[in-house]
C-alpha cells in the first residue's frame, strides 16, 4: 500500500546500511535434497527457501497432459513457521497466484518440447521469510532444474525492486516492503534479454517504472552470477568424488 509513515532512508542510505542499488547477501547451494531429481537451497537476506524438482515424469491428471510438451508446474508455499503470524498450511490465494506466474516464468527457459506428455514439478517451500520470497523461490527453482539435468535455454534469475521515500531501490527488506511505496518483482531470461515474470503494486510514474525495471534486471544479473557459481560448485564437488573413487 502506498504509505509513507515510517522513515526508511537516512543520508541517502537505507536503514540497514545499504545503498539504493545494493542487494542483500545471497547464497545458493545446488543439490540440497538427495532424493529429488534436482534441488537447490537459497539464503537471501533473511529468506531461506528449499526447492526440489521431480521429473520429467508422467503427467497426472491426464487432461493436463500435452502431446507437444512437458507441463511445468511450480508450487510455491510458505511454511507455517516462516512468518510472524503462523501461516495456514493450506495453499492461500497468494500462493496460488505466485505458483501460476512463476510456472509461466520458468516455462520459457525449459526445452519442454523434449518431454511431451510429462510433467516437471518444482516444489519450493519458504522456511523463513523476509520480503522477496517469490523471487528467492524462483531463483532457487531454475538452479534446481539445472541440477536435475533438464535441458534449458538459460537460468531464470529473479529480483525485486521498489520505491521507498520516492527513491527506486533494489531488493526490498521486510520494513521497506511493508512501508514502501511500490514493489516490482521481476524474473529475467538473460539469454533472450526478456522479462518472464513481472508483478507490481504501489504507485510508480511511467519513468520510475522504467528505472525500477532496469534496476531489477541489474539485480537479476547479480543473482545470475550466484546461480552459476552454485552450479559450478556443485559440479566441482561431483568431479572430486569421481576422482576419489
Amino acid at each position, binding site marked *: 500500500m502506498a504509505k509513507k509513515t515510517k522513515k526508511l532512508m537516512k543520508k541517502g542510505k537505507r536503514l540497514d546500511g545499504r545503498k539504493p542499488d545494493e542487494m542483500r547477501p545471497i547464497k545458493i547451494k545446488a543439490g540440497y535434497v538427495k532424493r529429488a531429481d534436482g534441488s537447490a537451497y537459497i539464503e537471501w537476506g533473511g529468506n531461506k527457501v528449499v526447492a526440489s524438482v521431480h521429473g520429467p515424469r508422467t503427467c497426472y491428471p491426464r487432461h493436463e497432459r500435452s502431446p507437444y510438451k512437458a507441463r511445468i508446474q511450480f508450487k510455491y508455499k510458505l511454511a507455517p513457521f516462516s512468518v510472524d503470524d503462523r501461516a495456514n498450511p493450506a495453499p492461500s490465494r497468494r500462493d496460488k497466484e505466485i505458483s*501460476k506466474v512463476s510456472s509461466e516464468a520458468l516455462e520459457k527457459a525449459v526445452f519442454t518440447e523434449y518431454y511431451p506428455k510429462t510433467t516437471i514439478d518444482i516444489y519450493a517451500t519458504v522456511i523463513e521469510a523476509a520480503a522477496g520470497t517469490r523471487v528467492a523461490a524462483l531463483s532457487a527453482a531454475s538452479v534446481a532444474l539445472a541440477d536435475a539435468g533438464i535441458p534449458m535455454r538459460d537460468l531464470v534469475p529473479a529480483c525485486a525492486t521498489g520505491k521507498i521515500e520516492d527513491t527506486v531501490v533494489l531488493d526490498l527488506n521486510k520494513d521497506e516492503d511493508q512501508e514502501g511505496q511500490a514493489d516490482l518483482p521481476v524474473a529475467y531470461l538473460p539469454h533472450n534479454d526478456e522479462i518472464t515474470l513481472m508483478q507490481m503494486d504501489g504507485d510508480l510514474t511511467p519513468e520510475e517504472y*522504467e528505472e525500477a525495471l532496469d534496476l531489477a534486471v541489474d539485480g537479476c544479473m547479480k543473482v545470475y552470477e550466484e546461480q552459476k557459481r552454485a552450479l559450478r560448485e556443485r559440479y566441482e564437488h561431483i568431479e572430486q568424488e569421481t576422482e576419489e573413487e
Partner: protein
Amino acid sequence: MSTDELIWDVKKDRVLRELKKGKRLDGRKKMESRKVEITPGFLGRAEGSAMVKLGNTRVVAGAKLGIGTPYPDSPEDGVLITSIELSPVASPMFETGPPRGKTVEAARVIDRGIRESNMVKTEELCIEPGEKIWTVFVDIFPMDHDGNIIDASAIAAVAALKNAKIPKYEDEKIIRDEFQGKLPTRDTPVAKTFAKIGDEIVLDPEIYEEKSKDARLTVYINDKDNVCASQKGGSGAFKREEVNKLIKEAVKKAPETRKQIEEL
C-alpha cells in the same frame, strides 16, 4: 485437451498471419479497444452493481456490505475483498470446482488495482475501532467470455463500488433496504490488458487473440496517470522496451475509460 489444442493452433496461425499484415480478425487497430457499455445498478439485491459489455464479453459485478472484524494491523480500516468466479456459464473453457491459478490470478490482479489506487476510503468504514468494521465484498461474475475478462471485470468492479451504498446499521443489525449514504470512494483505477502473439502486441484481446497469446500484460493506471499495479501472465516474455511502451500506451488509453465510468 489435445483436440482443443489443435484447434487453437490452427486459429493461432490465422490470427498471427493477419496480424503480420497489420490486421485483426475483427477489423480493429492493434491498439484499439472494443466498445465499452456500462449499466450501473444492474442488480436489485446488491448494495452496488454494474453490468459491463466489452465487445461481446459480458461481466456483472455486485458489491455486498457486511459487518466484519478489522485486521490487527489496521484496527480502524474497513476491509475490501474481491473475488471472481469463472463459471462454465461463460465459456466451455471454464470448469467447476475450487478456484485454480487462473481464477485466483484474475481476482488478485483486479483486487490489487483497486486496493493500490486507494479507491475505497476504507478509513471511513470503521464502526467500532478494533472491533467492528464494514467489509466490502466485490464479487465478479463473467457471463460471456469473449476475451479479456480482466479489463471488463475491472470496469465492472469499479463501477459497482462507485454506485454502492452503505446500509443502515442499528442495534447490531443491518437494515438492508435503508441506507446511510454512499460508499466513500476517490480514485477510478483503470486496467488495460495487452496480449503478445508472436512478436505482435494488441490491446484488449478478443477470445481468439487471447487463446493465441504467448504472454499477457495488465497495467493498472490510477488518477495521477501512474501505474498502481501490473502483472505479466502467460508462458511467453516481454522485452523491456515493450513493457515501457505498453505502460505509456495504457496511460494514454486509461482516461477515456475512466471518464466513461465517472460519467455514469
